[in-house]
């Protein structure tokens, strides 16, 4: 092995490289590394939120979280919400993308309107849905009573399992357009000869979907599931505005616990410990998921 002394030109190129990459590294540190380290640092203190005054407790906050037995129920609730709403988003999104890929009337208009739920603010969407589900004046209960499905209004948001089902459905309605956009874009690039070959082989519409379309969508679906799983896992505003985490803690996901600790109980350190724990769980899931999909994709 021989050492190679850098020439002045090589050193200048190296310096130029460092100079060019420095802004990116600095921005990365400012927006990713610093908040992350701050959160971990905060989680080691007991801090009163309004004054940000507190004392060092080391891993005491983590011990309290794990000792209280509150973490697993909150994680389970978060997983139920995430898996439930993500599954519906994928199913509705793919189905709608397939419809919008056909030569239907007003296709352009339909493609625009389908994005509506994704574009409106969560606050507005929740207000509309809460009004629709209102026990006294909501159209949904009115229709159910008129149809003879029930004699008394249903409590959609204040009892279980209705509250979780309602939140999952509204979440699916709000975010499935993202799936539609991504899948529709991919559908338009699938080579037509693949379908022609499948038809020649006698494949019907269902067989063509499973043998041609779905494999072609695989890569984009991996990305969609990854992104939407992260976003749904840390969803706060929709659930908070719909149920506030109730009844009792039945829809209290991890982000709601973080919020309640930080601003309901004014325990910023404990909130940071919850947030760090939540991040660790998310990281584990993401690593497992990415490894699984890579393994399958290698065949």
């Amino acid at each position, binding site marked *: 092995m021989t050492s190679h002394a850098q020439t002045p030109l090589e050193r200048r190129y190296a310096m130029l490289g460092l100079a060019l990459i420095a802004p990116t590294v600095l921005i990365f540190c400012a927006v990713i590394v610093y908040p992350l380290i701050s959160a971990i640092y905060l989680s080691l203190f007991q801090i009163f939120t309004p004054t940000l005054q507190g004392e060092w407790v080391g891993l005491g906050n983590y011990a309290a979280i794990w000792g209280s037995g509150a973490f697993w129920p909150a994680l389970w609730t978060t997983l139920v919400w995430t898996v439930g709403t993500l599954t519906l988003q994928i199913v509705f999104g793919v189905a709608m993308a397939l419809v919008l890929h056909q030569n239907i009337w007003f296709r352009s208009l339909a493609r625009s309107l389908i994005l509506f739920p994704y574009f409106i603010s969560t606050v507005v969407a929740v207000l509309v849905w809460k009004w629709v589900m209102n026990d006294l004046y909501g159209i949904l209960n009115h229709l159910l009573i008129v149809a003879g499905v029930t004699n008394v209004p249903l409590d959609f*948001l*204040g009892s279980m399992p209705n509250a979780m089902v309602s939140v999952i459905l509204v979440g699916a309605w709000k975010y499935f357009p993202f799936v539609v956009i991504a899948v529709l874009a991919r559908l338009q690039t699938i080579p037509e000869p693949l379908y022609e070959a499948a038809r020649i082989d006698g494949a019907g519409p269902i067989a063509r979907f499973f043998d041609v379309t779905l494999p072609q969508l695989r890569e984009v679906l991996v990305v969609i599931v990854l992104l939407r799983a992260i976003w749904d896992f840390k969803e706060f505003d929709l659930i908070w505005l719909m*149920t506030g985490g*109730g009844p009792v803690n039945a829809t209290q996901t991890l982000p709601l616990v973080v919020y*309640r600790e930080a601003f309901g109980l*004014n325990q910023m350190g404990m909130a940071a410990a919850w947030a760090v724990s939540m991040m660790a769980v998310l990281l584990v899931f993401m690593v497992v998921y990415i490894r699984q999909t890579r393994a399958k994709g290698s065949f």
Partner: protein
Amino acid sequence: MAAYQFQIAAFEAVTPGVKVVFETTSDEGYAPQLAAAFASGEVPDIVTHLPSFAVQTDYANGLLEPFDDVIAAIGADEFYPGANDVYRAADGKYCGTGIGNSAANMLWVRRDLMQAAGIDTTPETWDELRAACQAMQTGGLFGAPLPYGQNSMTSLIFIGFIHQAGGQVFTPDLQVAIDNDGTRAALEFYRSMRELCPPGATTYSWGESLTAFVSGATATGIYTGRVLANVRDQNPALADQITCATYPRLSTDIAPWTFNDFPSVFIPAQSKQKDAAKAFAAFLFDPEGYIQQLHAAPGHVLPVLQSISANPIYQDNDIIRKCGPEVDLMAASAAGGFNLGYESAGHQSNAKAGEVIGSNAIADLVQKVIINGDNVDQALGETAAAIDAIMKA
């Protein structure tokens, strides 16, 4: 909003160089908003209408400016006797003052429905109330809009029920005492009322509860005097049919317990305009603007200054004229009212009350026992432990 804009414009006119920017908040939103504001140091210069127990909590943590100067500027003798007691902090100073009084748990009833159901007198006890609600509940009309939601209204209203059964949340020296016979009786009664409330009462807060009665969906209501203005504006057909009383209790041997959140005005210690904020705080009590503010929802916020109650301009309002007995009853009830920061005249001021309410521990108790059907002993034990942890934090 119009009344505030009038007061702001009038203050800016007499205070050159000062511009007042108005921001709104909500019953469920103020605590996190203020916590974030205090943490960041970007605080409002003056805050109004938060409950007194929230003010005590913030003052105890050194977040508020003593308010004695402002009270002196308004005139301490102008207030009703004892009106500022709830704002006296442990250091002997005042942490704020009341911008009004409120009787938040008045029982509102419909005379027409009572008459149709053969009920002669307004219920005074829980048994009478339940029987009246059962008699008045028909298809599409529910008995009462009691809150069962996971929010501050449920906590605050249920604390009233505990006291209406002779119980208490804390002992006078602020030891946790929620596990008592009064709380158990309150839980039992509250559970029995569930079938007389709309299905969605499991998520009700102040707005939903108020609307349920004003719209005619429930036979009784539980709210402040805001009911009067809302009925006048939104459902005038009911205007001649409604009246109010103090909320019923377990038995007439127990004194009524009115929840008064003592809507406040206070100044954050981090304010960069303290002198202007103090001047504006005192200006809010200037009769012309103050009366406009009180008239925005007559009976909702009641005057704390003796001279205002007797002021002919204050009395010259259609609702106050028409509903004089109701407004007088609310004023008297509110004047003798309490809240979690001030449970009784014998209780110490509770600087942790705001955090207890913010934790939803008491609303959780209601939901666990009534919605989930959890064991009362276990739920009460968990609630007592949760509150105790907050007190010791």
